[in-house]
Structure formats: structure tokens, C-alpha cells
């Protein structure tokens, strides 16, 4: 191992998996990073830091659909991996152009790192969509409980945020478990189901997507499992409002700062518009039945012709997505709250996969219907 080169294992893994995934799927996993290097550097004012350079190979990455970058490290004397604090990356977590990039990890001496021999570094990139700041038509009215967005106004203002273009995949989750959950936490034996999930725990204690399943959405994850994965990435679940705006778009698709591109359908019930998911015999997402091509879950990005105005895929159906918000029922008040799920699933009828249908579930529950996606809010 070249000490000045971070292990290029991610690129190799992604390449291997991409060969296995559904031919029409893209961006289902970490974005490929190559030529990753790191080196010590010193600055007069900022002190010691590690300068990380890499090539981001996905040519689709842009200002509108950037990559979210996160770095994890392990000191060689330690067993566990840690996330490099976002504050120490100088705002370089959102990468808006492909090609050669770099970021600086500041404050390494404070992390107890004085030379490169002491540390292993892993860098990953996730495909995101930018949702510009501005108003949108919020049509859902959550039940009584905790609304992270602090209200139910329509139109409703949200600051800029970034949301994962696709649901978290089996491959991503396996990667997380291999680094974080080798004690078995976060894994559910039901994930072995090759039709519905396809995540295997090997006798070695490591995890692996079953052949052909890497690019499918991970399911059988509880709310806590989802939160654990996202904390590992430095991310979080979307609020209901963030999820809904990502589906429908703001009043202006370029945001209230520009107001040049009015949203032609600001009250759309589905990411693509007003048509029902199965209107005219065209299936726009993975709902109940196999007429859409999938009896169970579909690979993420399979219906990308019907992405949201921001290019977010699979918001309707496939797996219902955990949100940050919770719902307090009359009977369980004072106890743990029910978490709200959005988007419906592969087992829902077309009526159940719109922008406002919002079933609830206890946070410990998991099923083949429920998955999640990430949000980054600077």
C-alpha cells in the first residue's frame, strides 16, 4: 500500500457492482472516485491539515446535481472508524463539478494525528440533487406530533438543501455495515430475502449484496437503522416538508433568489406531474403488481424518466421512505412517537404513492416496504 495513496477500494467496489446492476440504472451507489491521494500540508494561519485530492468521474455531477463528499478515518491504533467533522472540511462537502478536485481536512493535530502512518482514510461521494431556497406548495397536513419544519403553511419556505437522488441502496448499506456494524447491529435476517432485499451476512462477519441486488433499495431497516446509516455519512433523514418539496418543486424551480423558471405544476401530486402512476398504461414508478416490470422492489433510478423537477428519482413508490418527523397518537402519547413515511411502496396501489399520503410506523419496525434516503442541509 502506497502510504500517500488512499486505498482505491471504493472505485473497485463500485466498478464491480456496476457490472452487476440493472443495465438501466445509474447513480445507485457511491459515485466513483479515482486517483485519490492525500498528503500533509501546513499553513501559516491554519496549521497542519491533510490535503485530499481525487478525480470525480461522473460527468453528470453539476451545480444542480452535485456530489456529497464525506470522509471517514481510522487511526491505526484504533478499531473504530470516525467521520471527519463537516466543520473541518471547509465546506467542501458539496462538489459541483466532475474531474480533479481536492479538499482539506483541517485540525488533524487536534484529532491526534501527527503523521500519515497513523491514519487510514476512506472517502465516499453520494449523488445529490440541489433544492434551491424558496417557497413551495405544501399540501400535506401531518397529524398531531413533531414537525421538524415547524409548521404547515402553504406556501411554505425552506432554505436550500440537498437530497439524495435515489434511495439508499443495498450496496451502500452493506458498505456501512462492513465498517460499522460487524457486530450484527443494523442487519436484519430478513434482508437475506433475494426478491425483496438481498443483503447477506457472510460467515466472516462481513456483509455483501447478493448477486444483482447491489443497486436495489435497502429495506427491512428500522428508523433507527436509517438514522444510524445517515449519521455515519454525516447526513440525516429529510423532514416531511423537505421530502415533499423535493417531489413537487418550489414555486420557482431555480429558487426564489432567481425566479426565472416558474414551476409549471407547483401542486403536482406526483414527481412527474398530475397523471396517475399507471395512466395510459404507462407505469411511472414501481407500484403494486408486476405490470410495471417489478413484482417486488425495483433497482433505484429505473424510472428516471419520471424523476422530480430536481432530478430526484423514486420518490413515488418502490420503498416508502422514513422521514425525520413523528406522529403522536392519542393512545401512545408520552411514549415513543410513530415516525412518518412518505411516498408509498412497491405494494401500494397508485393512490398510495402521491405527495401527501403518509402512513406512520413505530421506529423499531422494519419491513420490505420501508427504506430511506439522505438529506444534507448546509
Amino acid at each position: 500500500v502506497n502510504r500517500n495513496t488512499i486505498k482505491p477500494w471504493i472505485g473497485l467496489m463500485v466498478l464491480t457492482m456496476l457490472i452487476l446492476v440493472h443495465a438501466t440504472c445509474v447513480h445507485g451507489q457511491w459515485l466513483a472516485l479515482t486517483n485519490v491521494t492525500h498528503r500533509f500540508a501546513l499553513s501559516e494561519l491554519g496549521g497542519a491539515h491533510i490535503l485530499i485530492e481525487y478525480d470525480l468521474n461522473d460527468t453528470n455531477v453539476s451545480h444542480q446535481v452535485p456530489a456529497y463528499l464525506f470522509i471517514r478515518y481510522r487511526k491505526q491504533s484504533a478499531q473504530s472508524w470516525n467521520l471527519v467533522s463537516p466543520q473541518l472540511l471547509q465546506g467542501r462537502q458539496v462538489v459541483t463539478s466532475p474531474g480533479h478536485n481536492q479538499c482539506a481536512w483541517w485540525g488533524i493535530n487536534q484529532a491526534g494525528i501527527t503523521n500519515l502512518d497513523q491514519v487510514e482514510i476512506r472517502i465516499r461521494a453520494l449523488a445529490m440533487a440541489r433544492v434551491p431556497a424558496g417557497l413551495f406548495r405544501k399540501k400535506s397536513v401531518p397529524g398531531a406530533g413533531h414537525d421538524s419544519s415547524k409548521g404547515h403553511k402553504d406556501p411554505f419556505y425552506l432554505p436550500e438543501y440537498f437530497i439524495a437522488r435515489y434511495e439508499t441502496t443495498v450496496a451502500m448499506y452493506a458498505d456501512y455495515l462492513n465498517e460499522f456494524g460487524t457486530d450484527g447491529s443494523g442487519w436484519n435476517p430478513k434482508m437475506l430475502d433475494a426478491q425483496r432485499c438481498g443483503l447477506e451476512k457472510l460467515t466472516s462477519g462481513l456483509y455483501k449484496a447478493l448477486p444483482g441486488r447491489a443497486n436495489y433499495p435497502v429495506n427491512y431497516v428500522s428508523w433507527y437503522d436509517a438514522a444510524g446509516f445517515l449519521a455515519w455519512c454525516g447526513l440525516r433523514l429529510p423532514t416531511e416538508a423537505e421530502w415533499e418539496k423535493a417531489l413537487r418543486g418550489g414555486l420557482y424551480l431555480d429558487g426564489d433568489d432567481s425566479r426565472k423558471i416558474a414551476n409549471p405544476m407547483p401542486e403536482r401530486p406526483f414527481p412527474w406531474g398530475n397523471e396517475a402512476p399507471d395512466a395510459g398504461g404507462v407505469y411511472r414508478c414501481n407500484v403494486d403488481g408486476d405490470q410495471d416490470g417489478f413484482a417486488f422492489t425495483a433497482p433505484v433510478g429505473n424510472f428516471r424518466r419520471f424523476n422530480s423537477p430536481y432530478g430526484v428519482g423514486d420518490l413515488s413508490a418502490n420503498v416508502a421512505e422514513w422521514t425525520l418527523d413523528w406522529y403522536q397518537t392519542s393512545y401512545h402519547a408520552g411514549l415513543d412517537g410513530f415516525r412518518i413515511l412518505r411516498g408509498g411502496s412497491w405494494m401500494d396501489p397508485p393512490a398510495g404513492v402521491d405527495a401527501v399520503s403518509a402512513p406512520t410506523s413505530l421506529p423499531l419496525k422494519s419491513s420490505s416496504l420501508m427504506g430511506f434516503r439522505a438529506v444534507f442541509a448546509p
Partner: protein
Amino acid sequence: MQNKTVTRRTFVKHSLMAATTLTALSGRRVLGANEKVVLGVMGLGGRGTYLAESFAKRSDVQIAYLCDVDTRRFARAREAVEEAQNHKVVLLQDFRKMLEDRSVDAIVNATPDHWHALGSILACQAGKDVFVEKPMAHSLWEGRKMIEAARKYQRVVTVGTQSRSAPYVKQAVDYVRSGKLGEICLVRVFNMMQHAPQPAAPNQAPPPGLDYDMWCGPAAMLPYNPSRQWLNQWEYSCGPIPGDAVHQLDLARLLMGDIPCPASVSATGAIYALKDGRDTPDTQLAAFEYDKFTLLFESALWTPYMKKTPMDVRDTDEMPNWPFNATRIEVLGTKGFMCVGRHGDGWQVFNENSSLIATVPGRQADQEHQDNFIQCIRSRAKPAADVEQGHYSVLLCHLANIAWRAGNKKLAFDTRTESFPDAPEANRYLRRAAYREPWVIPDQV
């Protein structure tokens, strides 16, 4: 597979009158000793889905049907049930199709309050046994009709008041009966909760997938509003307080030997904290006078310092912190004082010196309650929470509601006619003012 062939039009066309033919159509299946009990579930909200999954996990039960007027509720219940029993289910918006199936032995009715009676009566007429969720009936009169239907069609009808099946509760009943508490003159029932205000939103068209006409059923068809919570409206509910507190009142009645009706009720209450457009009180107190004791009932929706038993205390040998326990019953005798908790909390007795003299921990009894229902389907015995006991328990909720709606009055209650002989203005609350055709419960069930 989802049945998409039954439209609302055809459903309405086949009015309630048609239901009387269901008995002849379906007949009764003779259940073999080793045969699975075949169940259908109507109402796939949180409780209905939980019950469907729980029953599906039993080796002696098969869930054949899942019914809900809102197709958006199908997926979660279907996935849970099919995974638990490894057997497909039929999905229906129109539960009456399920009642026509002779292979169905019983139904679980976990609909909102206003559908409890009609759904259960139709099931009895079709020869099905019934597990109906609490509060068992939307009005006092509906409860009586449910008893009549159960008896007429010789059906097992049990209510989802599962504490009745808990061994620790039976021990408490025996203790009370032993006389060790002395003469019991007062029973205090608490049910304190924390509800948030319902958010405001404009009326709108019902969403696709929801048969709102059928959801309203026998009740008035108010404009659809996504924020309006049915639990807070008299039209569809007994109120959020009775909806939960009926567990407590049922448990108190059981402790007192399943005593039927009080001689009078007086009530007070108001909407103090949750002024969000609801028409049901957020604070409700009632006093029920029996021959030998008074039952005091106290409940509110805005008391965050009084919580239901924490999860780490439930189903353990640990006892609740009684003064701040939101769901306790106090039995006050001339010799002793008993505190009983609901969620598998157990009970304790204190003597005249305020010394603790008995402690019995408890466990929750959902499983035992379901066991009892399935056993009674086979044996034809009366279940632990027979419909008649369910009636007398929810009757207390109705009396408290009526006394409050009549202006916080004290009302004498005639236990024979189940009405208020001295307060004709209160009698109008005994029965829904108008049933919406065709969802009329007939006088003769």
C-alpha cells in the same frame, strides 16, 4: 389480490337490507378441531394492522381478508400478514364481500367508533363471530343492538379490552371479592393523556383510493378535511377520552364484580386547552352512583406530568409511580386501599396505617385475550370480554358524555329501559339522531 370490481355504486345499491340475506347465503361452517380459524379484518389503521399481524402469527389462525375503505392502508397490513402466515390475503374495500364467504369464521372489527356496531351486527347476521375494538359502540342504543344480534345469531362477540384476560387482574378481582379491603365505598378511575391540537387545513376533495362515502357510513358525510381527526368529533367518535378511558372503566367494573349500570351520572368538563375546532371535551369528570359505592372518573388530554406507565416498567415486577401514573384505578375500602394499573402494571394494597401489605406484579394480556377469543370460537363459550360486559363499560362513557352534553347535569338512569326518565332532553343522545341510508341499524336486528 386486490378486488377492484366493487364500486361504491354497487356497494350502496346493495343496501343494508341485503345484509339480512347474508345468513342464508353464507351459513355457518363447522370448525374441525385441528382446522385453522379463518379470520377477516375490517379497518386497517394502527390497531387493525396490529391485530391482523398478531392473529396471523398464530398457528391456529389464518387471515383470509383485509378490508379497508382506504386502499392506501392495504400495503402495510398485507405485507405484515402475508409474511407472518406465508399465505396470500384478499384485499377488499367492501367488507360485505368477506361476509359472503362461508369459509370465514370470524371478523376483527377495528374500524372507527361509528362503524363498530353496524359492522359487527352485519357480521353476526352473516354467521360470523366478532372481535370488536373498543369503545364497542358509538351510542348506548347501538350497544344494546349488538348484544341482541350476538344472542339472536348465537355469535361469540368479544371486545378488545384485553386487561380482562390478564391473570394479575383476576387476582385483583379475587382480592377485592375477599373483603380484605372492607366495605368499598369509592372507586376512583384516572385516565390522563397528552394530546396535541389538531392542525388547521381547508376542506378538500377526498383523496383517490379512499371511499369517503363508505368511510362515513351511518354517520353524516361532513366535508373531507385531512386535518380533522375523527376521534375529536361526536359524529364519528365517542370522544378521545372515552376512546382510551373505556379500558379503565371496564377494568374498574370488573374489579367491582362486573357491576352493570349505575343509578345516576353527573358530569363536568370542558374544552379548556385544545380549542382547535373539536366538539368533544378535553377535560372530563364524572360521578357514577351505584347502590353501595360511587365511581369517580377523571380524565384530561393536557397533563404531560401524568404519563401512562413507562415501557421499562410495563410487564416487569417493578411498580408504577402511582401519584404520577396516568392510568390507575384506586379502590377505597373501609380497611384498605388498592391501586391497580392497566398496562400489565400489577397492583398494590395499603392498610389503615398506609403500610404496603400486598404487591402483585402484572403482565399485559393481548395474547391471552386473543387466545380466549379463538378458544371461544371453538367452544362457543362466552368470551372474557363478552359483548354485554363491553356494553356496560362503554355505557359509562356514554353516560358521562350525555351528562356533559346535556349541560353538566346530574341524570337519574333507569337501568331497565336504559334511558333518563327525568330528562327527556338527554334521551336524544342515547341514539344517533339520523342514520344515513343505507347504513341504518334496524330496531330488530
